[in-house]
């Protein structure tokens, strides 16, 4: 596991650099099982940084989220670099952002953190209830030790870690300028069994499932806003001209919203699971994302967010692409 003092030292060092504007990492939250992502601008604040299994959020989302505030005439835009700490999964977002030319590689300083998994707040709440104190945790290859206000309990990884971690293919960052700890061994694989299982259902069963799920959606668009890959200047979903989906929340518009969102992430979603994590009404968004991830992998031998040199999936083709459904 990463040594937090080393991490802080490194962060302070990076922040002290002239050409660095800010650093995105995590600090202890105010309550509960999730840390707070934080953006720090001064080396003196680096002391607050942490890394442990409560650091669930994907800091790569913030790179593209940063508003480019209008620069008054005569002034220069601040183009200094952004430093960002990333776990394995988070780093894939950076890779994919680079594939999509969201920014230049030298615009970011990536501090990679090999990761053994992060906590799923919903699973944790089922085990520990609602906690108001700040939780910290440690994870090793088998167990997670959760410290709730000094009371340490050890639980099995699968009972508390996020699903994505239990099938993590990339625990070690794929892109970084510096790795803050030794690489960890890959412990899991992903057979997409869940996708297969879902696919086994009839169209009616599938729709019944989604109808219930989609009708809960309040269209807060958090799943979009949190996504590191959702950074269009103006999202088609909320555009007024042309208006693809209406703002009304009903099963028709909600469904279309979800199809659009999933579609726009086809071949781009890097499975950080942030969308599902943030959804306030627990819609299993990953069930859509993972279906596409699996199909893309199987049909086009493509995996987003692993190769900076890759061509975007849907902006490329192979003459041999499958076409069995075409008449």
């Amino acid at each position, binding site marked *: 596991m990463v040594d937090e003092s080393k991490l802080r030292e490194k962060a302070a060092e990076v922040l002290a650099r002239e050409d660095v504007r800010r650093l995105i990492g995590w600090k202890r939250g105010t309550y509960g099982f999730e840390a707070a992502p934080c953006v720090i601008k001064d080396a003196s604040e680096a002391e607050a940084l942490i890394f442990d299994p409560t650091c669930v959020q994907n800091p790569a989302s913030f790179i593209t989220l940063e508003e480019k505030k209008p*620069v008054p005439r005569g002034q220069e835009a601040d183009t200094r670099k952004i430093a960002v700490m990333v776990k394995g999964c988070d780093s894939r977002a950076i890779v994919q952002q680079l594939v999509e030319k969201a920014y230049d590689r030298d615009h970011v300083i990536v501090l990679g953190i090999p990761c053994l998994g992060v906590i799923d707040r919903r699973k944790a709440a089922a085990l520990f209830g609602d906690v108001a104190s700040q939780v910290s945790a440690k994870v090793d290859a088998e167990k997670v030790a959760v410290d709730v206000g000094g009371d340490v309990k050890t639980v099995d990884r699968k009972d508390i870690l996020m699903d994505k971690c239990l099938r993590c293919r990339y625990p070690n960052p794929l892109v970084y300028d510096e790795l803050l700890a030794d690489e960890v061994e890959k412990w899991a694989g992903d057979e997409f069994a869940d996708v297969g299982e879902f696919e086994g259902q009839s169209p009616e069963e599938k729709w019944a499932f989604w109808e219930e799920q989609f009708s809960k959606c309040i269209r807060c668009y958090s799943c979009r806003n949190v996504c590191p890959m959702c950074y269009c200047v103006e999202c088609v979903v909320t555009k007024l001209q042309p208006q693809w989906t209406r703002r009304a929340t009903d099963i028709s518009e909600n469904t279309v919203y979800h199809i659009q969102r999933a579609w726009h992430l086809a071949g781009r979603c890097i499975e950080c699971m942030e969308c599902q994590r943030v959804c306030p009404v627990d819609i299993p968004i990953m069930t859509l994302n993972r279906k596409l991830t699996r199909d893309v992998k199987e049909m086009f031998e493509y995996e987003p967010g692993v190769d900076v040199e890759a061509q975007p999936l849907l902006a490329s083709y192979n003459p041999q692409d499958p076409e069995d459904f075409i008449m």
Partner: protein
Amino acid sequence: MDNLNRRPRIGVYICHCGINIGSVVDVPGLVEYASRLPGVVVAREYTYMCSDPGQNLVKEDIKNEGLNRVIVASCSPRMHEPTFRKTLKEAGLNPYYLEMANIREQCSWVHPDKEQATHKARKLVEAAVVKAMLLEALEEKEVDVIPACLVIGAGIAGIQASLDIADAGFKVYLVEKTPSVGGRMAQLDKTFPTLDCSACILTPKMVDVANHPNIELMSYSQLESIEGYVGNFKATVRKKARFVNFNTCTGCGVCAENCRLAGRIPNEFDENIGMRGAIYLPFPQAVPAKYTIDPERCLQLTKGKCGKEGPACAAACGPGSIDFEQEDELVEIEIGTVIVATGYDVFDCTRKPEYGWEDIDNVMTGLEFERLVSASGPTGGHVILGRDKKGEGGYEPKKVAFIHCVGSRDKSVGNEYCSRVCCMYLAKQAHLVRDKLPDADIAVFYMDVRAFGKGFEEFYDRVRREGVRYIRGNPSEIYRTGEDHTVVIKVEDTLTGTPMEYEADLVVLGVGLEPRRDVREIIDLFKLSQSTDGFFMEAHPKLRPVDTASDGVYLAGCCQGPKDIPDTVAQAKGAASSALILMAYGKVKVEALVSVVSPDECRGCGFCMEVCPFGAIELVDQNRMGNIVQVAQVNEALCKGCGSCAAACLSGAIQPRSFKDEQILPQIAVLGVRI
């Protein structure tokens, strides 16, 4: 006031097309329906809308009713869209304010049920109306064409195309990578089926090309970059340093004789079976007849030192043409059209190790054999193998085997196609062997013989009658047994079904033609596409075989696919004529239905750029309230309006004019409603 702010005033014209539409679709009912659609100010019917009176109806209404959108519901737009566009134009309305509803091909001719056909016609008209509301005026532009052509590659294809264009009075820049023009054809000995001497028919053309006042020959040169669009390209050509003063070199060759490395460097032109020095002329008839120093081998250039006394060549050269300080030169040229004629490479036999080409010196490729039998080749045209370095000794083969389809029609090496020339050149070579070694035993192993061309079958027949054995079978392995030159070919005679081992002391592999190994260079420069076989892809396999997706760029010769010399020449002439059409007319129309980017919505991901088959999009800097961001920009002269970019863009920031999302969505709304 600008049309932008004018409310659509739509005229709908329903055509009876004689009885073609009228007998099935309820035209009066349709007119009545159309007249009630929002925005429609007039709706009329007429027997033949495309006739003069029909068109006049439209023109009158444009004038009298102030129409600013016109819908013609008649036949397919593929038929009469241009007609009605013209009508609008003549009436002073922008031609792109036209929308057509195809109620003949899509209704009356295919749906006998009157009611159903009428219902569908209504829907189609309604969809046209909602789209028409959102149509925009588009401008048709023309650009001037620079009357000059760039020809890349000086094989027979490039030579022929250059000569044709130059003869028509236009400037040609002929860029050839190697020191001499001529290409593969110059390497050949005789040519099938007529057995003309290749050099005899080619050399005069090579000389013409060098001397033609309209042709600027740039040998030993390479295209560095090209930008622009049809009619207006700017290219940069790198003229590689020859280290020999081009103007003073007389081509006498004393330098080469004196070169310390003379005869020690394999000559590429001879497929490495002959030798040259570090300063060389690839072959005696080379054009231009100017010597070139090989910078990778020359001692002076690689080590900074050549012998104790300094470079022998320089010392020997009378005019003092040797110049080790020479540098590459970059030349910028402006051209209106481009012909790509970069030819082919032969199959790389190392990819078929079972044939032993790499290890066994008397297994050679067809091209090597061409050099071997060529009078200008290393053996002076004698079929002699195994000579030593000094060119002495060696033996004449007694049993010669030719093997078809090496690297062609072979999925295992990834080439599914037929190379089209191997059957014939092997027949030719078998004939040459028979000619030169009358006693030799000659066997040809083939899958089947494709003698499709003019005079081919006759030639094949003649060769067989000359005592060349044709054995149907595809050898599985070729190996050497003992010390002598005997090579064993393991093969099954598939006609008799008997496995056999044929012993030979010369095996010629009928290697197929492949895309040049450095083909990427050209692909990247021109954004050309490749067909599945890897050769350049033509715009249409049947109807536009010399055009490419990039306007003003044409293909000639084997770079587009394997072919023999007559086909190459024919295609070169085709490419030349295509280029000439543009240059002779002097202007080219630019597509009006191009894509536009809304820079404020673009996120600069470049997806559109990646998919655009015409390389019409680039990312450029844009100032977004003080912040510099990258956004897509469409080069309207390159864009063909296919709209692929729009489907790739997640932000909807790029849209093809007249087929924008906001124009199509209302159509979907009308046609999607189930009733």
